[in-house]
């Protein structure tokens, strides 16, 4: 499950980078916009999937949902670069939250008064 999410995230990131690369090469405005927006959708979905994973573990961070909302708004108003940055930030927050859960699953006991 973990692996799968990560793989799709990486795949979509690679796809986006490639798309962006093509975009700047060909510089075909309207068409490339549609492609970038397509990359956005899959990156956004992967980041949201990771957020849900963190939430399921009980470790979601406060601002992750807000970042994803802002990303959507930015994408809709045509600010693709900003939108992708926000998605990446949200995705990283959830990665960190999941790593935090892993750390804490063995660390919390050391704090219990004996």
């Amino acid at each position, binding site marked *: 499950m973990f692996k799968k999410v990560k793989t799709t995230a990486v795949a979509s990131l690679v796809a986006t980078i490639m798309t962006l690369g093509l975009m700047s090469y060909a510089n075909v405005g309207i068409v490339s916009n549609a492609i970038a927006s397509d990359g956005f959708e899959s990156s956004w979905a992967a980041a949201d999937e990771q957020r849900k994973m963190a939430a399921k573990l009980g470790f979601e961070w406060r601002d992750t*949902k807000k970042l994803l909302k802002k990303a959507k708004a930015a994408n809709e108003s045509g600010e693709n670069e900003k939108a992708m940055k926000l998605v990446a930030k949200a995705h990283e927050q959830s990665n960190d939250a999941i790593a935090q859960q892993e750390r804490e699953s063995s660390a919390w006991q050391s704090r*219990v*008064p004996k």
Partner: protein
Amino acid sequence: MIFLKIRLTEGPNESEIMKKLIVVITATITAFSWISLHAGPDSDQAAFEKYFTSKFPDTPVSDFINGVYSIDKPSREQWEEIEEFPPYELAIDSGKAAWNKPFANSKTYADCFENEGAVRGNYPYWDADRKEVVTLELAINECRVANGEEPLKYNKGKMADISAYMSYQSRGQKINVVIPDDPDAMAAYERGKEFYYSKRGQLNFSCFDCHGSGSGNLVRADKLSPALGHTSHFPVYRSKWGGMGTLHRRFGGCNKQVRAAAFKPQSQIYRELELFLTYMSNGLDFNGPGARK
């Protein structure tokens, strides 16, 4: 070990050593399982209480129900003045009015709760049939729904008022949470405990980081209150809120300030957290509603 070594140099047969080893190992395992059986909620509670009574030796144990004012003389004086005209009085009055006003089906809260609502000391409890923790606020809404009324929002408003009235009626009752010898109840307690000690959020804090090891320290100008007695006085009037709030509203606030997502009030995990945290204060008095900064 030494004993075995000596025997070895004397050259006994191997099977005899094996037998002795097995006896020793079995005895050790038995001893350990006895210890782990008895290292349950009871000894957790004793260690928890001792942690705070040793950290704040000047505070009588019965006084921890007064939160930060139990360890901070200057702010205690201000607080005692506030308590002379308590800001939660309005909430008690409006809770009393709601208590007495019949539902549409002409029944009242008194048909759900005995003793004129003085039942605070029965909550939270583990319901063995439902296999979940039942809190006072959950029971209030279940009473409403059973009588055809809309459930109330859990954080503030009418819910906090009714809870304030019932807590007021119950002042002086002992905190006496029971964790039955039942694997499901134990698991719920353990989840509440793990939640309390786990670091969460972008800022990476556990509840205990602030209210245990950090209690008594200053965050800017505010002293952090000790966790012992933490659930005794809810709902609470908080000047910062400009009104009343329930215990789970406070849980949500404390989660959010470390940039963790808050859980819904009365969610399973917050009820289990309440079970654990209230159990830690067993033996102290319920003294709600309260007033805090």
